[in-house]
């Protein structure tokens, strides 16, 4: 069965290693924080200017001067720090952040990503995404495998305006875990109960299938 958003987040959480500084985008990526193993040390950076984010505040303890990049009220953990936007992007551009997890509208088999604009329909802006994808070595995309019309979001070539080129390393969808390789999307794992055929049908870009594809383990 296809994964829920929570399950996608849970699977991605396994990619978070001890000692990582992690930037989480809005949407499914934000959920990843809830599933990171408790026995490893990780710090979450938010590009609006905080490192060491904690959970949401208790009711009544929210502070309008303490939000994340999704404008949600947050808390901090011991060892946290605040900084200005220029320093925040020095962390990102200077590759001090170890892992970036973000959502996407489309990903191409070359690792291109589009997630900020649908011409004539919707333009929210790129926010920090263009800096993140242009800089980070380790970028994981969290998204549904297909859009609401049932069309594949894993394409040969993105049709929407790009956010970055050749930057995505891994994609985790409701159907599969895929790695971007020179030759396209290498299928690594499939969602429990989802067949390789279903993934093939839902993937427009070149899909590489080597041997037996295991089911995800959480």
């Amino acid at each position, binding site marked *: 069965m296809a994964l829920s958003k929570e399950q996608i987040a849970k699977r991605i959480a396994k990619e978070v290693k001890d000692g990582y500084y992690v930037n989480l985008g809005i949407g499914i990526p934000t959920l990843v924080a809830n599933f990171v193993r408790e026995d490893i040390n990780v710090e979450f950076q938010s590009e609006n200017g905080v490192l060491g984010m904690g959970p949401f505040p208790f009711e009544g303890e929210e502070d309008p001067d303490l939000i994340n990049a999704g404008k949600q009220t947050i808390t901090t953990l011991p060892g946290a720090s605040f900084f200005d936007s220029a320093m925040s*992007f020095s962390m990102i551009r200077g590759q001090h952040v170890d892992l970036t997890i973000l959502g996407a509208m489309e990903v191409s088999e070359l690792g291109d990503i589009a997630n900020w604009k649908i011409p004539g329909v919707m333009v929210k802006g790129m926010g920090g995404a263009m800096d993140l994808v242009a800089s980070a070595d380790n970028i994981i995309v969290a998204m549904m495998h297909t859009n609401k019309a049932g069309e594949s979001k894993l394409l040969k070539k993105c049709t929407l305006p790009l956010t970055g080129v050749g930057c995505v390393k891994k994609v985790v969808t409701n159907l599969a875990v895929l790695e971007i390789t020179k030759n396209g999307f290498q299928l690594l794992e499939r969602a429990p109960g989802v067949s390789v055929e279903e993934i093939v049908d839902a993937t427009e870009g070149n899909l590489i299938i080597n041997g037996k594809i295991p089911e995800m383990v959480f």
Partner: protein
Amino acid sequence: MIRKVVPNVTQACQGIKNGMTLMFGGFGLSGIPENAIAQIVKLNKNHLTCISNNAGVDDFGLGLLLQKKQIKKMISSYVGENAEFERQMLSGELDVELIPQGTLAQRCQAAQGGFPAFYTPAGYGTEVAEGKETREFNGKWYVLEKAFEADFAFIKAWKGDEAGNLIFKGTARNFNPNMCGAAKITVVEVEELLPAGALDPNQVHIPGIFVQRIFQGENYEKRIEQLTVRKRN
């Protein structure tokens, strides 16, 4: 000590003219110069170019200027919380330049620090780089971006002193320090205005040299855009 205090928002905002380029600190509704925005609405100046990471919400922040159609052009990185904004943009009433958030921050920083231009990887290979110079360094491609040129920067700080020294609070800091000194005139409103000597010189985030006018702000609403909380056990 060089005194930067002005008595109120009216005097702090003197000199704003139609068609000027204005910078506004803040991220979402956090750390926005509420008093200055209200005054600019009142002054009814228009054809403004506004540089701000976001564009407020429909009825608060820069959304108030959008409602009154005072803004000709917006330079932002993310504008996703504002229906009136989207309407004006898609209809072509509003000119919008969307740029990467880190580029926005650094174009402020470059203006503050006297750098005319810098190379950044953000936006390479995208429409953001169209018409801009690109260049390879050490096997990676970069886009040449220019310092902003603005007439006023409107800043919100937590504490400030008479000499214009500033301390920001939490994530209300964001673009505010980067915009100080990045425009011809920097106008700061603070929650608490203190005498010189009241701030530890070691803890000042922005020295007064980057500030032309400072005043005691009033009636802060500090709206929360996305209230997210946990239940107590």
